[in-house]
């Protein structure tokens, strides 16, 4: 699974940058066509749901998605499923 922000929905409130335990979302700087600075993703493959959703067969964590007031955060299937080497600092 791959984390993605829907550019047509995000309003750039940056709440996602505050809630992710891995700090995957970083405040964006470049404005898009709608004048919104989309957050940037810092090594999104560290996300618990990206790594373990397939293994557990259910949604994990998901705090960013529930928090995002604009329904802009979701996961997309990777085809074919790519294996990632993931380093996680605790």
């Amino acid at each position, binding site marked *: 699974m791959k984390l993605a922000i829907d550019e*047509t*929905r995000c*309003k*750039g*409130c*940056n*709440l996602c*940058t*505050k*809630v992710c335990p891995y700090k995957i979302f970083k405040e964006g700087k470049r404005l898009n066509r709608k004048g*919104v600075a989309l957050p940037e993703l810092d090594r999104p493959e560290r996300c618990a749901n990206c790594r373990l959703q397939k293994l557990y067969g259910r*949604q994990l964590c998901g*705090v960013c*998605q*529930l*928090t*995002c*007031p*604009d*329904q*802009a955060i*979701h996961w997309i299937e990777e085809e074919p499923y790519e294996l990632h080497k993931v380093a996680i600092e605790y």
Partner: protein
Amino acid sequence: MSYEDWYRQDRLPHIFCAGCGNGTIINCTLAAIEQMDWKKEETVFVSGIGCSSRAPGYILTDSLHTTHGRAIAFATGVKMANPDLHVVVFTGDGDMAAIGGNHFIHACRRNIDLTVICMNNQIYGMTGGQGSPTTPKGCLSSTTPFGCAETPFDLCELATAAGANYVSRWTSYHVKELEKAVKVGLETPGFSFIEALTQCPTAFGRRNKFRQVSDHVEYLRSHSLLKAKRDRMLENHEQIPEDMYIVGEITRRKRPAMGVKP
């Protein structure tokens, strides 16, 4: 299946301002509903007037966007006419506690089988930031330019005193807890009331020194006191700071209820 399937995708993005907490609360509510095995055809959302009350318009089920303050009155009608329906009300602090205050307390008294989710942004967001019955003391709004001098309602205490079977309070920071509380509310027969404190950056935050949306969410987090901890503090005769919001499950009981499917 995921809770995203309950959204009317063609109506998104919604009209709420950037950082408005209403969207977060709809997410948490739909995530709870998704776990209920309810059919969309058997679920009805009802709301009054206000930014918060626009929520049902973004949900796939049948819904009623009614008149200001009357969401619970309409919902009572829907539930009594057809107790097979699952009826969920979205309302705001102004909608429910000001103009709709009587409908609210009497629905609690009747203990009618509804789940009411109040998006409490402590302001009339839609009409430009007038003070509401939940605007905290000292806060600025367009009708309290020198700081609100009145004591606000504690909506959860009000619901409890009036007779609701289930009452809990969380904030837009506590998304997982809010989701669980809504689920318990949906499962509980009788009147369930969930207060979700939330940020309105446009009408409230701007006037009250929350420069960033996240500053307000952080304030809600740091000013939340778990009910269990509050109870322990009371036992130890400790002082409870006045500006704290008590969060958690406030009330759960089994008073006789109305409109429950036999």
